């Protein structure tokens, strides 16, 4: 089980407090679909994904991104129990959505880039390290119930 120090938790929580979950969610999901286009395989019914600008402006991408990142917010509130927090979602992603857990790692990395883009110099190496740790924890938690 991943353990977060007090400093890591503080860094993660304080930055998260300044995140616009709706904007960041859409940005993160959009960037995932642009930078790693094979991830579009899960979103055939999202309409126009034919170009970077189409993807970034797509209302379904934005809405789904917001949903995903709101859920990620639960991770920030439950860093000591990521596996428990995401148990149900893990089952869903395995049994119903059939998502390769590698996609959780890709999205986590893209989210880190979005935060770096938004926060600039405030996103120090130490803050990045804390966030890479929590996104890896979430990815593992989401993969945990796979069978």
């Amino acid at each position, binding site marked *: 089980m991943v353990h977060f120090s007090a400093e890591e938790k503080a860094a993660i929580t304080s930055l998260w407090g300044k995140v616009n979950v709706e904007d960041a969610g859409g940005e993160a999901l*959009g*960037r995932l679909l*642009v*930078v790693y286009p094979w991830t579009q395989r899960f979103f055939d019914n999202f309409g126009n994904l034919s170009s*970077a600008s189409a993807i*970034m402006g797509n209302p379904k991408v934005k809405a789904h991104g917001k949903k995903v990142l709101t859920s990620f917010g639960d991770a920030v509130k439950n860093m000591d129990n990521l596996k428990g927090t995401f148990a149900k979602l893990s089952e869903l992603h395995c049994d119903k959505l059939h998502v390769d857990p590698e996609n959780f790692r890709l999205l986590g*990395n893209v989210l*880190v*880039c*979005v935060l*770096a*883009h*938004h*926060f*600039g*110099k405030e*996103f120090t*190496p*130490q803050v*990045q*390290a804390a966030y*890479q740790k929590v996104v890896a924890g979430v990815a593992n938690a989401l993969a945990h119930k796979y069978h």
Partner: protein
Amino acid sequence: MLSAQERAQVAQVWDLIAGHEAAFGAELLLRLFTVYPSTKTYFPHLGSCADKAQLLSHGRRMLEAVGVAVQHLDNLRAALRPLADLHAQVLRVDPSNFPLLIQCFQVVLASHLQDEFTVEMQAAWDKFLTGVAVVLTEKYR
């Protein structure tokens, strides 16, 4: 491998880095070592805690090599042959580490360039660096 548009994006990214190879390279290494401490095992000569001068010096060398790759998008294999040989015969960095370096590179660019670093540039740069990593590791066996 890279479309004409992607090559233009890669060139655009390089234009924002050129002249700052040492600074970007040093931050890249600092982030790599901070976020993924196991990568320090490949840099024993940088000491257990690399100082600023060492990071700047090695960072600059790495970014200059990236610059060489940017200038030779048509022929990465030929341009990077010495480095590919070095990685295969001497350095033998496990291929799983290259995505870690690429992630840190994206974070350096995103945090420094912010809105100048568009999503298209991020996509092209990721594709380009992944291609470089393939060339650097393809002689491993």
